[in-house]
């Protein structure tokens, strides 16, 4: 299961990665300075892995002083769940699972057949935030991912309905982060705001961080749907008339298996991925996320309702 990584080379010790790391660690330390009960959102995807790596560095040699939360749509890649459980156990990090399936079973939300589960993550997320009395929620969202996220603050206040109000955001000046909030409100914290997809991979290479295998090229049975390569899983059977074929693919993002597409790739190492990402002419969400293709403002609409 373990992918052996090349040791980081000196050539990759790029100065701007150190700048980004210093900024992220400063932000994460402010969380511990300003909040009582933080939690870090951890999906097992590359961004949350980098964020957790930075959080552990920020408090080193202390252990991570707060838990991580996985908002679980139930449509997982087994490789990612295996990675999550094994690595968190290694690091001694506590896991909270906010389950979409449990929320459906409890009647908190209802699922329309054929609907993507990404939008359904909001209720279990907010329920888990309330239940855990979390006042700071660290997320791995990056401003370069999506145009609504480009307008997001590093410290972003959510009201007691978890809503984001993009027109009423606090000005965020210098490196002074204002985490003051009222009871019932919480603050979303985005330490990777200024990172790009390429920065994430260059940093993973520099630090020698292990990532789940689905990020590397492998053979998989897929169908082509909405212009994306979608893996066949128990949640995503082939539809009538779709031709099943075996392709060498990898994932650029890790999300709900029903709406996350794979890309054709031969990249088998992190170094290959860095090169491939640098040369890519398509954004990661454009290549792989069905949920953001719904409309020009799909992400803004989900974020307003409390999505990450």
């Amino acid at each position, binding site marked *: 299961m373990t992918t052996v990584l090349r040791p980081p080379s000196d050539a990759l010790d790029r100065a*701007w990665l150190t700048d980004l790391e210093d900024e992220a660690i400063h932000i994460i330390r402010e969380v511990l300075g300003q909040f009582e009960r933080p939690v870090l959102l951890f999906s097992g995807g590359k961004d949350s892995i980098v964020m957790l790596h930075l959080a552990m*560095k920020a*408090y080193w040699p202390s252990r991570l002083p707060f838990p991580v939360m996985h908002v679980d749509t139930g449509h997982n890649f087994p490789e990612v769940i295996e990675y999550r459980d094994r690595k968190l156990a290694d690091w001694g990090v506590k896991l909270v699972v906010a389950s979409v399936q449990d929320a459906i079973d409890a009647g908190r939300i209802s699922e329309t057949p054929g609907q993507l589960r990404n939008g359904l993550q909001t209720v279990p997320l907010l329920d888990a935030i309330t239940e855990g009395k979390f006042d700071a929620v660290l997320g791995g969202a990056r401003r370069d991912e999506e145009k609504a996220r480009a307008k997001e603050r590093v410290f972003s206040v959510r009201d007691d309905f978890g809503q984001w109000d*993009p027109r009423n955001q606090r000005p965020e*000046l210098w490196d002074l982060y204002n985490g003051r909030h*009222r009871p019932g409100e919480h603050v979303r914290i985005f330490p990777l705001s200024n990172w790009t997809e390429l920065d994430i991979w260059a940093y993973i290479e520099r630090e020698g961080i292990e990532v789940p295998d689905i990020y590397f090229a492998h053979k998989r049975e897929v169908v082509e749907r909405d212009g994306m390569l979608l893996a066949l899983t128990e949640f995503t059977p082939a539809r009538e008339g779709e031709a099943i074929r075996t392709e060498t693919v990898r994932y650029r993002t890790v999300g709900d298996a029903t709406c996350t597409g794979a890309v054709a790739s031969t990249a088998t190492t992190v170094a290959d991925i860095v090169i491939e990402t640098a040369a890519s002419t398509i954004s990661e969400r454009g290549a792989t996320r069905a949920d953001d293709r719904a409309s020009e403002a799909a992400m803004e609409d989900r974020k307003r309702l409390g999505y990450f």
Partner: protein
Amino acid sequence: MPGGLLRVVTAGSVDDGKSTLVGRLLHDAKAVLADQMTAVEVASERRGYEGADLALLVDGLRAEREQGITIDVAYRYFATANRTFILADTPGHVQYTRNTVTGASTADVAVILVDARTGVVEQTKRHLAVMSLLRVSQIALAVNKMDLVDYDEAVFDRIVTDFAAAAASLEVDHFTPIPIAALSGDNVVDRSERMAWYGGKSLLEYLEGLEIADEPDLPARFPVQVVIRPRTAEHPDYRGYAGRVEAGILRKGDAVSVLPSGRRSTVTGIDTPDGELSEARAGRSVTVRLADDIDIARGDLIAGIGDPEPASTRELSATLCWLTDKPLRAADRFRLRHTTRDVRAVVDAVESRLDIASVSPMPADELGLNDIGRVRIRLAEPIVVDSYAINRSTGAFLLVDETSGATVAAGLVR
């Protein structure tokens, strides 16, 4: 740091073509990906525009796209072979000046846009005042739409002269003027052949070649964010102070004073998870160990010994950028957030307000939204400050509304 990030802020009045310039920079620097370009083309067509409106690349919010204006700061990221950039694209409307202030606060360089047909207007002076006040160390004046004035050198020269006059009254001693045409890309990435009289660099060449002067040579400033005490079997007695070096260089073996208490000690170690460092320059996030077991908590400042010394004070003379609708008046109370410290504050007096048209201070007894003015502030507990002119970090603070938690002012210690 060398080879590090360059943070750029752009500012311009409405319809100066700023979003077009940013779109052009990103497009010509190959930072716009195929699917993003397709999305812009589709959205432009839906709006009945001729050709792709590059502004739709940066205007991400529904309200912005509906109104065709930029409301909030958008951060864009691009890299060339020579440099990595973070670009804060800020709105032009006067009512959103607070977002220009936000973008300027972290910028190394400002690009101020002027329409060649209208020249320097009040909003140009406002942007210049903000950049000067927040000490953005490099300023470029991009005179846009040169195509609409026949690439006329005389028009350009006249605008540069007007801008220089405003700059002089704001104590900006240097700036770099560049004539451009964002729509066609003249002098944006490549030098224009249509303005042979201009011998200088294109805008991107200018940005790539910029050398950002370090902050004036200060003894180290290290505000403590968190005290690290693992109490594990491996590290039973470890006690370190985690923070970010905000000025100068902190070295192992340095004598330091811990403020505001004034206790002295010596740096015995500078730790990172990747190993110990012999020194840490400004910007580095590290954990510091000291020789003496003294009481240190979040909010304290570890400072190198030497001049200039920071001032421990309960009274501030400051310049404020007022960021909210409700005006500021004397006797108003707030929380003041400075480095890692949070204290109660009362504004004793509003002294003056900057008049943008004349670029000079006028007597005033209140500050309204987007006003810049001088005030006196009294604090419940001391904070340890430098003048903002000496250090952007230890000289900056926020005023926060005690009830709502909103950030209502950006403050600069005089």
